[in-house]
Structures are given as structure tokens and as C-alpha cells.
């Protein structure tokens, strides 16, 4: 045991049990896995990825480059830092060789998200951050204070004094004052990991990992989305090692980390300690470790200085050049310029790097400070203040002053900037996690790389979990040294979010599984489910695709069988479809007709109330973007049906033109998609069914002609009937408000019973429309297809002066007869169904050598009950002129011969629509 009495803030009255690499250990509340292992003298906790070298704990918090472990219990999680895992009873972890293992069971923990708004966000609850928060709170700001540690106080060890009091008492009093403010929120165990525009900061709060067992109903992690008027970055600094040969062994760590282990956890990380430093701060570590009973030798390349803290340690001027290991691979001695020194702990300190990540995230420029040997914030950013060590101010009085908003006198620098000592570059590790050495940097610069960004990617330095917190500046400095250029001319690699690794589960929050995306269902969803419908996703909608019946062998019909049955039933008797997902937009106002004349390619203003017209919409480029029917409701009102997928985009499209080009038009646009349920009742017997539903309505062809609509009532409920057909059959679209939809649907099913009414899904709808050559926008078109290409010149007005897309039709390219045009394809073998997307080539018996000219592709392909064979729709170059020709469709290894036909394959004369 290396636990020292009288030191540390862990609760030694309670004992926690945990397992590491199969061995049981104990620790105390307040420990981390790393401190508890070190308390037991376990120094090797990982092995390096590439070189399989033993590694221990190098730094004591999230900057540690080496101590990655695999957690097994309470829940498997790979590659966590032992230094940031708070010890809980029952923790099971193991060492890993660089790569962890993801859980093979679902994570049942909950992750969530919250928003916070404040005038001042302070990141870091060390002395500078606490005073900044207190200053803002006293000013009356709403304040959020976050700190990634379990307790406030930052790097304070408890040996300091603030305002004449014990520093930790000062911390506690300041926290108490902050907590008393109603508008101050203090978030501990919370890492601000990304800083974005306009004071937007993302922070991850770890809420339950330190509690065992984790309380039910509490999310494990929470992402805070904080919007702050002002961001105070008080994130401290990371100590920087000096690179020496074999500097990666267990038992080598940063000086302040060993000091932190002693004061925070009561752990003395070594008995025979060598401190190698070119900076005064490490003298505190030497003095404190000596005071706790260690035998400490301090080597400093600088001449003796008077302002270093004295203590019970030996100091001499000197350099550490390398290290040696004992049988366990951990450090056993150091080589110095004066000979060999036995030790079990080597502390390295070459100075401090301000933790300026959050300043850099928002493009704050860093400036190289040659005295400091580090990059620090080098410009003023609106809305951001950097204080304390993050600003390069390392003395406590200076930190407190900056926290209060004052500018302290900078202290004279006494440190010596020393990046590395003489030694074998191949054994001088720069990024310990990546096993990258000075020799690797030399290889990069030798290969001609001159930018630190390139060197980073070539050597992988700074790309591990720690993102180069301790190695980044060293890599820049050593690169500069090798290139013989000043470091300030190279700069550092770019700091990007996240500051520490963040689990995807936390970012996903609750938006996973069923909640990943909203699910939209129609008013009849329950009926479809009860009927055994198979659903397909159409955007966010769940649409019934087909309704399989029980099969002969006890199973259910497959899709092909069900769809052939549904298609036959519709063309023979009557079918019913839930078409409620179609987009519906009510266009209203004195200028509604003029507006629609510009939106549609055909004339809409001439439509009379009670009539229906099919229309096509194009973009400015003359390509089809949507189609559907338009009902004229009255003089100033139209009901526009869009495709299901077009509901939102077409409303946006209309709004854009109305607001930005034609603001003088007196028109309003209202989405009524959710308000109306629409059921096409389709087939030769639909007249009987609709007639029975609305006995007061004359449904004869003469009284209720095609493309007209009438309102009626069923049991006092308003119902709209419209003679619209998307199948070529006699059909009515029956519309009703959503509330009454289930009752009306059931009534139609009951009334249709004598006629064999068959509910059908989207797949049958697709086959029926394809048999008639009706395109599906987005399936048979892809944004490069004009109405003319679809054979719909009849839907393009030649009378209108202008409409969206009209001018494009006259462009030479749009008149090119070799444009791809929609045609039908009949495989010569009527049983072969072409895969949708298949390419089409000239007729051939043998595939010519590539490149093979492509003539087009199959857009829709089905088996047709009406035709008793397969068929397809396709876009083919110059297709309209090729009708009657034979072409070839390569499918897998086969060449399928097909005949080009017109796109209307069933009832081309249109004799069926009136029944």
C-alpha cells in the first residue's frame, strides 16, 4: 500500500471493492480507478498499441495519454481512462492493448439533453473560474458554472491560502455563496467539450457513474446545450513533460500529477523519486512528496534560483537522459548526465500549456509565448474571456485577480524551455498512446513534410483519445527544431471539439430506436394493423403496403401473391385504399387562380367550382417536381393534392414564390394534409358502393362525371366525393375529416362486402397506376425529366404567357429528341421481372466490351394481373421514337431482350373510367 496517513480527501471510513485484471482490490469513495490501483502499487495498467510496451498512469486526469482500460461492470465500455473513472463498489475493469471491446448487449441506460441559457458561462471551477462566477453572480447575471471534476477547486491541493484562509475553505464558501443565488447553476462532473458560434457550448454531465447501483429513472449522461452571452474559459493548464529516452515506462508521470495523487487521494506514487524539471512548479511536488516520506532527488538544468520552494529533497543541476526498467517493465533507475540513479518514480516537468481548447474552438488565434514555451490566447474575442492558467497566468494571486476581472502584473518568468534531452530519438516518445517518437517526426520531416498538420497525420501524434493534450506542443517544437525554423512559424495543430471523447449514446440522447424519427400514422392505422397489413415507410409515414391473407400451408401470402390478388380484385370488382397521406394544401384568396396558373404548367384559373383537374408542377429548369389533382372549391378556393412526399416541400415551394416574387397576390396557403382522410374506392363496382354510402347523390356517369366532385353528408358528417382515378378504373375518392375516418372506412368496407371489396396497399396502387402509365414523381422521375419526357405535353399550357419552367421548355436542350423519355418495356419472356434500376442497352446477343453506351434505365417494374405478364416503365433515350424496337437489359449475367411499348399498357382507350 502506498496510501499515506493524513493526506487526501477520500473517505477512508468506507471501503469499496473492485476487480482489475481478475485481481480483487479495495479503495475508498473519492478514489478513481487509477488512484486506487496506484495505492496498491499497481503501476502497469495497459500495454501500448503498436509496440506492446507496458504503460502506467502518466497524468492524473483527462490529459493522461496512457491509462486506457476496458470496463466490464457495471456495463461494458471500452477505452476509458482509469484516471477519470470514479471508483464504485463492484467495478470490474481490465487492461487493454490499445483497443477496447464494445458491449454485445444493448445499453439500457438513458441519455438525455437539456438546454440552459445564461448571461455568463464559466468553464472551470478552479480559483479563477470560481471568482469569475462569483463576480458575475454578484452582478446579477444568470450564471452556469461547469467543471469536469467531481469537486470544485481545480488544481488547488489544500496547501495554499486564499485571503488568509485555507484555500479549500475558500472554495467551499464561494460555492455556498454561488448556490444561494437563484440564477446560478453549478454543474460538476460536467465537461464543456465544444464551443461554437454565438456563445453556444456543449457540455456532458456524468450523472450516475459515480453512484452504485445507479438510481433508476436518472439519465446516465446528459448533454447540456448552453447558450451564453459571455463565456469565461477558466480551464487551467496541462503540465508538459520533457522528452527523454524511454520516457514511456510505468512509474513516469508529470510532477503535478504525483502531487495531486498525494493531496487528492493520499497516494504516494513512489518512495524513491527523481524529479526532472526546468520549471519552478515541480519544486512543490518535490517538497510535498519528500514531506510525505519519499526520498526525492531533483534535477534542474537551470542554475540555482532563490524563489523555488525549499524542502527535504536533494537538488542538483543536471539532466535526465534516459530510464531503465526492472523485471516488471516499470522504471527502476534513470540515467543522468552525472550517472545512474535508482528510483521507482520519475516526475517530469517542462512547464505548462494553457488549456485553450475552448478558445480555439471558436477560431481564437493562439500566439506562441517563447518565455512560456507554450501557445496562449493571442487575441481578444467578442463574448469570450480567458482567465487564469488557461490564459498563461500561473500564479494563484494572478488567477484570482483575472477571475475578478482585473489584469494582474505579469510575474517574471524563471522557467527554462526545454523540449528534450540528448538521447536515441527512436526511444524518445512524444505521443505515448500512439507509440510515436522523435524519430517518427524526423521521418516525417525527412519525407518533406513542413506543416504540423501534415506531421500530425503522418506520425498520428495527437490523434488518440487525449488529442495531444500533453504531446501537441512538444510535437510542434520538435518539428520546428528538426526543420530549423522557429516554432511560432509552425503553430499548433487545430483544436477541434470534442475536448474529451464523448459517447455516441450521449449525443443520440433519446433519439434512438423508435424515437429516432417521428412516425406518422393515418387515422386508420389501427385498422390496417388489425387487418395484418405489411407496412412500408414513405418518408415518416407508415403506409399499408399490402394485406396478406392466410396462405394454404398455414403461413401468409407473399407480396407477389397478395398484390396480384389485390390488383385483380380492383379491376374485376372493387378495392379501397387509404390515401390519406397525400399532401393537401388549401389555396385561398382572390388571386388563388392566378397564383396556381404560375405554379402549374397547365391552366387552373379556368377550372370551375365542382371540377377537378390534374396538374404538373415544374421547377424553373422545367423539370417535373410534383403532380396531383386540384379541386376548385369555390371562386376563391382550391384544394391542391400533392404527392405524399411533396406535402411539405411543395408548400415551401409555393410559399417561397408567393412571398418573394408575387407578394402582391392575395393568396393564403394552408396545409390540410392532417385534416382530411382520403379513401379511393376503385373498380367497376365502386359505383354500387359509393351509391350505397350516399343514396342522395346521383352517382351515374351522366350526373357525376369524371373529374368532378360533390359534397354530401353521411349520418350528418360532411363527406366529399371526387371522381378521380389513379388506376384507370371507375373510382371515387371519398374524403372525410380525420375524426370520422375510421367509422366511414368501416362503413365502406361493410357496404362493399356484397361486391367483394378488397383493401389494397401502396404496392397494388403502384402496379395499377403503372399499367396505365401514370408516373410516380420521384420514382419514374429524378429531377431531370420534363413533362414532355413523360409524354404529358397535353398538360403543358401553350396559352399561358408564363408559368414556372415555361421558358426552359424552349431551350434547345429541352427539345433534343434524344432526351430520355418514359416508355413501357415488355420482356419477351413474360415471366421475367426486370429489377428496377437496371440499365438498358441496344439490342445485342452478346455484351460488347466496355464502355457500353447506356440508353436509360428501368424506373418501375411489376407483375400485372391484368396483362398476365410482367412489364416495366423506363426512361430511354429517344424512347418515344423507339416504340416497337427491341432493346437489351443486362440483368446479372443474363441479357434480357425487351420490347419498347407506349407507357399505357392497360386500357389505352380509357374505356374503363366511367364503369
Amino acid at each position, binding site marked *: 500500500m502506498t496510501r499515506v496517513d493524513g493526506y487526501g480527501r477520500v473517505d477512508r471510513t468506507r471501503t469499496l471493492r473492485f476487480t482489475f485484471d481478475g485481481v480483487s482490490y479495495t479503495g475508498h469513495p473519492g478514489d478513481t480507478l487509477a488512484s486506487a490501483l496506484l495505492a496498491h502499487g499497481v503501476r502497469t495498467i495497459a500495454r501500448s498499441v503498436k509496440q506492446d510496451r507496458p504503460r502506467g498512469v502518466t497524468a492524473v486526469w483527462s490529459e493522461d495519454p496512457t491509462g486506457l482500460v476496458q470496463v466490464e461492470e457495471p456495463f461494458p465500455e471500452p477505452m476509458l481512462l482509469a484516471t477519470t473513472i470514479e471508483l464504485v463498489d463492484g467495478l470490474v475493469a481490465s487492461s487493454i492493448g490499445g483497443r477496447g471491446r464494445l458491449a454485445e448487449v444493448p445499453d439500457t441506460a438513458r441519455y438525455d439533453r437539456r438546454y440552459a441559457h445564461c448571461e455568463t458561462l464559466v468553464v472551470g471551477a478552479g480559483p479563477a473560474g470560481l471568482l469569475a462566477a462569483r463576480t458575475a453572480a454578484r452582478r446579477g447575471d444568470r450564471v452556469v458554472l461547469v467543471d469536469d471534476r467531481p469537486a470544485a477547486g481545480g488544481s488547488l491541493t489544500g496547501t495554499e491560502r486564499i485571503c488568509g484562509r485555507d484555500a479549500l475553505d475558500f472554495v467551499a464558501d464561494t460555492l455556498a455563496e454561488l448556490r444561494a443565488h437563484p440564477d446560478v447553476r453549478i454543474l460538476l462532473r460536467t465537461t464543456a467539450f465544444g464551443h461554437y458560434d454565438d456563445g453556444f457550448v456543449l457540455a456532458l454531465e456524468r450523472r450516475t457513474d459515480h453512484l452504485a447501483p445507479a438510481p433508476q429513472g436518472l439519465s446516465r449522461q446528459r448533454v447540456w446545450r448552453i447558450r451564453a452571452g459571455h463565456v469565461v474559459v477558466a480551464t487551467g493548464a496541462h503540465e508538459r513533460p520533457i522528452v527523454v529516452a524511454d520516457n514511456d515506462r510505468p512509474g513516469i508521470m508529470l510532477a503535478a500529477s504525483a502531487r495531486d495523487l498525494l493531496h487528492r487521494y493520499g497516494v504516494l506514487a513512489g518512495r524513491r523519486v527523481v524529479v526532472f524539471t526546468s520549471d519552478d512548479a515541480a519544486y512543490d511536488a518535490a517538497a510535498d512528496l519528500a514531506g510525505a516520506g519519499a526520498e526525492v532527488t531533483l534535477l534542474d538544468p537551470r542554475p540555482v534560483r532563490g524563489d523555488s520552494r525549499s524542502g527535504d529533497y536533494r537538488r542538483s543541476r543536471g539532466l535526465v537522459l534516459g530510464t531503465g526498467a526492472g523485471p516488471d517493465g516499470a522504471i527502476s533507475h534513470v540515467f543522468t548526465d552525472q550517472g545512474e540513479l535508482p528510483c521507482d518514480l520519475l516526475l517530469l516537468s517542462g512547464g505548462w500549456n494553457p488549456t485553450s481548447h475552448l478558445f480555439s474552438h471558436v477560431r481564437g488565434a493562439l500566439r506562441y509565448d517563447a518565455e512560456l514555451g507554450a501557445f496562449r490566447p493571442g487575441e481578444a474575442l467578442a463574448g469570450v474571456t480567458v482567465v487564469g492558467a488557461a490564459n498563461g497566468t500561473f500564479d494563484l494571486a494572478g488567477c484570482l485577480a483575472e477571475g475578478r476581472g482585473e489584469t494582474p502584473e505579469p510575474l517574471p518568468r524563471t522557467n527554462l524551455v526545454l523540449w528534450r534531452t540528448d538521447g536515441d530519438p527512436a526511444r524518445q516518445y512524444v505521443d505515448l498512446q500512439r507509440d510515436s517518437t522523435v524519430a517518427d517526426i524526423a521521418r516525417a520531416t525527412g519525407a518533406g513534410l513542413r506543416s504540423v498538420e501534415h506531421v500530425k497525420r503522418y506520425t498520428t501524434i495527437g490523434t488518440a483519445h487525449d488529442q495531444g493534450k500533453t504531446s501537441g506542443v512538444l510535437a510542434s517544437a520538435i518539428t520546428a527544431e528538426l526543420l530549423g525554423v522557429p516554432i511560432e512559424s509552425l503553430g499548433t495543430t487545430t483544436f477541434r471539439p470534442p475536448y474529451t471523447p464523448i459517447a455516441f449514446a450521449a449525443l443520440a440522447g433519446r433519439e434512438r430506436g423508435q424515437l429516432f424519427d417521428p412516425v406518422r400514422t393515418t387515422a386508420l392505422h389501427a385498422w390496417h394493423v388489425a387487418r395484418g397489413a405489411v407496412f412500408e415507410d414513405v418518408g415518416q409515414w407508415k403506409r399499408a403496403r399490402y394485406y396478406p391473407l392466410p396462405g394454404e400451408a398455414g403461413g401468409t401470402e407473399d407480396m407477389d401473391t397478395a398484390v396480384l390478388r389485390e390488383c385483380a380484385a380492383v379491376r374485376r370488382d372493387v378495392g379501397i385504399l387509404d390515401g390519406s397521406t397525400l399532401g393537401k394544401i388549401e389555396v385561398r384568396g382572390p388571386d388563388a387562380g392566378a397564383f396556381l396558373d404560375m405554379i402549374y404548367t397547365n391552366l387552373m384559373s379556368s377550372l370551375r367550382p365542382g371540377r377537378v383537374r390534374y396538374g404538373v408542377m415544374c421547377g424553373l429548369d422545367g423539370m417535373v417536381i410534383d403532380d396531383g389533382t386540384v379541386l376548385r372549391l369555390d371562386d376563391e378556393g382550391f384544394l391542391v393534392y400533392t404527392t405524399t412526399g411533396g406535402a411539405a416541400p411543395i408548400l415551401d415551394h409555393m410559399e417561397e414564390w408567393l412571398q418573394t416574387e408575387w407578394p402582391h397576390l392575395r393568396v393564403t396557403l394552408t396545409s390540410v394534409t392532417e385534416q382530411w382522410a382520403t379513401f379511393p374506392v376503385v373498380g367497376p363496382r365502386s359505383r354500387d358502393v359509393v351509391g350505397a354510402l350516399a343514396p342522395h347523390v346521383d352517382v351515374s356517369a351522366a350526373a357525376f362525371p369524371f373529374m368532378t366532385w360533390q359534397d354530401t353528408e353521411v349520418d350528418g358528417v360532411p363527406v366529399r366525393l371526387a371522381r378521380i382515378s389513379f388506376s384507370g378504373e371507375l373510382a371515387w375518392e371519398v374524403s372525410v375529416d380525420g375524426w370520422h375516418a375510421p367509422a366511414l372506412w368501416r362503413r365502406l368496407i361493410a357496404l362493399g362486402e356484397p361486391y367483394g371489396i378488397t383493401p389494397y396497399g401502396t404496392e397494388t396502387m403502384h402496379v395499377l397506376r403503372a399499367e396505365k402509365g401514370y408516373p410516380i414523381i420521384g420514382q419514374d422521375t429524378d429531377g431531370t425529366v420534363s413533362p414532355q419526357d413523360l409524354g404529358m405535353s397535353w398538360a403543358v399550357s401553350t396559352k399561358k404567357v408564363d408559368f414556372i419552367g415555361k421558358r426552359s421548355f*424552349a*431551350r*434547345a436542350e429541352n427539345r433534343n429528341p434524344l432526351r430520355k423519355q418514359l416508355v413501357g418495356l415488355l420482356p419477351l419472356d413474360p415471366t421475367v421481372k426486370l429489377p428496377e434500376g437496371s440499365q438498358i442497352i441496344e439490342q445485342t446477343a452478346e455484351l460488347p466490351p466496355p464502355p457500353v453506351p447506356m440508353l436509360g434505365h428501368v424506373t418501375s417494374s411489376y407483375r400485372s394481373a391484368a396483362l398476365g405478364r410482367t412489364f416495366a416503365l423506363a426512361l430511354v433515350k429517344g424512347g418515344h421514337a423507339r416504340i416497337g424496337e427491341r432493346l437489351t437489359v443486362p440483368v446479372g449475367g443474363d441479357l434480357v431482350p425487351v420490347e419498347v411499348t407506349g407507357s399505357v399498357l392497360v386500357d389505352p382507350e380509357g374505356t374503363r373510367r366511367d364503369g
Partner: protein
Amino acid sequence: MQLIECPYCGPREEVEFHYGGQAGVAYPADPAALTDEEWGRFVFVRANPKGRFEERWSHAAGCRRWFTAVRDTATYRFSR
């Protein structure tokens, strides 16, 4: 995540907005009078300056109103 000032709703997060490209590109008074090239330029070609840019935005997840804003394309800062 920038804040964008909607003239009708006030500052809102950028994800609520839809970008509409260059502002002030007038629909031709008589499209039929344009050559193919002129019409093609109107349909497809937009300015892409570095620096100050007048552009159209729609507060798509809010009031759904279109407005014109001036933004610096190098800094992303809106100037009004």
C-alpha cells in the same frame, strides 16, 4: 450553432432556418425575350463572393417567412 436574427421572431438557432441563396435576383420581366444563355444564367448562375453577401433566408421551422439578410461569407457574421 449560430444565432440568426429573424426579423419577425428575433434571434433563433440556425437549424430553424432554410438558406435561399443570393437575394435580389429578379425574375425576368419577359422570360420569352431572353436568349437561352440569358435564361440559363438566370436559372443556374449565382454570385459566390468572399465577404459581404445579400442572401435570402426563410425561418422554416418558425414563422416560415422569407427575409433578406447580409452575411459575410468568410466570417459567417450577419451584419443585419
